[in-house]
């Protein structure tokens, strides 16, 4: 084991199809979808009426009352997920120095549900009715800040807002932070903008699926792909150097974060190709692995035909046609924005741990021209030494991360 390797020693997941790491993983392997009719509010007049709601996550069961009223649901999810990941890692936070631990999360939508409540107060009762906590609860960095305060982690903290690519970008920043000497980093991401205002903002992208059948609404790489279903949730990970994990006698190591890369697409109409392929190749290079070393790809799977075609082209350029198993477990959760790639990284590490590739669901007619070897319907037993996670964020963000077994 290389002492400089970056290892994941604790993880958590909060997803529409499972709350808690093992519950989520069992549901994912069973192909259980969490996508259904949106219940949070009456969406009857909206063109999109499906969502992946993590409705079995009840904040009052996991977050102190005082914090619930002062933070958005995205932060409730983040606080619980961070606490679970730290507990999973068996980290005694009391024994960490004040500046030994960092928090780097991804966030993409901000605290929409909280913000909507305050906006309604503003319009109906006037500016004095807007709570002081709106000033920080809406903010992208709110979850990082609250986790930092709660656990007294005052190392180099930060937030990255690159939509669905954020979970990988945050992990990459956590990797840099630990390499630079911070003892431990909590990283991941959550989003929860399934309020009317949040929903309307998402609709504006034109990428959401308006198909009402929950089993056919989000079918990336399918001939009937028609957009994606939005969801809420996310995941957190505890990252340390192998040497530090070993020194404190960490009880388990899920695997390594081997290498990553981030690229940005050229402006639309420039005629230059999208930069996803370069992100994948650069991540492989950063990890020091070849394409043939990758045992499975967790694809971004936007579900929008143009973007599915672009991702398939990037993957076949790097791996060849039908060159590697590709899976999209987020077909069971919807796209979780900042939580999406974080959850995929956790899922990929579970895949490494258990030697099994979780399935994609709902896809029934893969586009033959894409040349992808999609894992559909049932998990596939396979030793997974290295897994590639790919993510794209609205506006041109591309990110790729290689995770692998601890060697």
């Amino acid at each position, binding site marked *: 084991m290389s002492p400089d390797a970056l290892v994941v020693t604790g993880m958590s997941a909060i997803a529409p199809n499972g709350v808690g790491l093992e519950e989520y993983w069992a549901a994912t392997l069973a192909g259980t979808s969490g996508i259904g009719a949106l219940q949070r509010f009456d969406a009857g007049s909206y063109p999109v009426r499906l969502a992946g709601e993590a409705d079995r996550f009840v904040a009052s069961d996991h977050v102190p*009352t005082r914090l619930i009223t002062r933070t958005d649901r995205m932060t409730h999810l983040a606080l619980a997920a961070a606490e679970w990941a730290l507990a999973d890692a068996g980290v005694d936070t009391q024994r960490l120095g004040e500046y030994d631990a960092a928090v780097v999360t991804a966030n993409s939508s901000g605290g929409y549900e909280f913000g909507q409540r305050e906006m309604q107060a503003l319009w109906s009762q006037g500016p004095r009715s807007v709570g002081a906590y709106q000033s920080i609860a809406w903010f992208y960095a709110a979850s990082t800040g609250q986790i930092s305060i709660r656990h007294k982690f005052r190392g180099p903290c930060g937030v990255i807002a690159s939509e669905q690519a954020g979970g990988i970008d945050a992990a990459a920043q956590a990797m840099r932070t630990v390499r630079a000497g911070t003892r431990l980093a909590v990283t991941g991401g959550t989003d929860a903008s399934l309020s009317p205002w949040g929903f309307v903002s998402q609709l504006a992208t034109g990428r959401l699926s308006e198909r009402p059948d929950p089993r056919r609404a989000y079918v990336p790489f399918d001939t009937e792909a028609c957009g994606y279903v939005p969801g809420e949730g996310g995941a957190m990970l505890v990252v340390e150097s192998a040497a530090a994990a070993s020194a404190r006698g960490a009880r388990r190591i899920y695997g390594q974060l081997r290498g990553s890369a981030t690229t940005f697409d050229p402006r639309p109409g420039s005629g230059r190709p999208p930069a996803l392929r370069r992100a994948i190749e650069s991540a492989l290079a950063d990890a020091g692995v070849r394409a043939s070393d990758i045992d499975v790809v967790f694809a971004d799977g936007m579900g929008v035909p143009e973007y599915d075609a672009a991702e398939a082209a990037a993957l076949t350029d790097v791996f060849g046609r039908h060159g590697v198993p590709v899976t999209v477990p987020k077909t069971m959760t919807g796209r979780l924005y900042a939580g999406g790639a974080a959850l995929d990284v956790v899922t990929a590490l579970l895949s490494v741990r258990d030697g099994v590739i979780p399935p994609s669901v709902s896809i029934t007619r893969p586009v033959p021209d894409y040349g992808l070897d999609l894992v559909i319907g049932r998990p596939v037993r396979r030793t997974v030494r290295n897994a590639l996670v790919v993510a794209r964020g609205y506006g041109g963000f591309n990110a790729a991360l290689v995770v692998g077994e601890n060697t």
Partner: protein
Amino acid sequence: MTMSGITRQDLRRILEGPGSEADAAVWEAAGTLDTPFSDLGFDSLALLEMAVRIEQEYTVAVPEEAVENLATPRAVLDFVNRRLAEA
């Protein structure tokens, strides 16, 4: 108009928010009223929000400058009840 004063449980409700009954015992405990807000886990935003809520519910102005000097729950209760008595 006679206005009843503000009690420690009113202040608890204002500071802790709805669903905070679990914290009631803390607020009944001896010493809590004289414990600095910072030690009770309330930051400056919580105190600003408290000032606005008190103003809305009791029509007693609690200016921002005053908030800085009201370091404990007792200081707030005394400040508000004194203003109410004067009104």
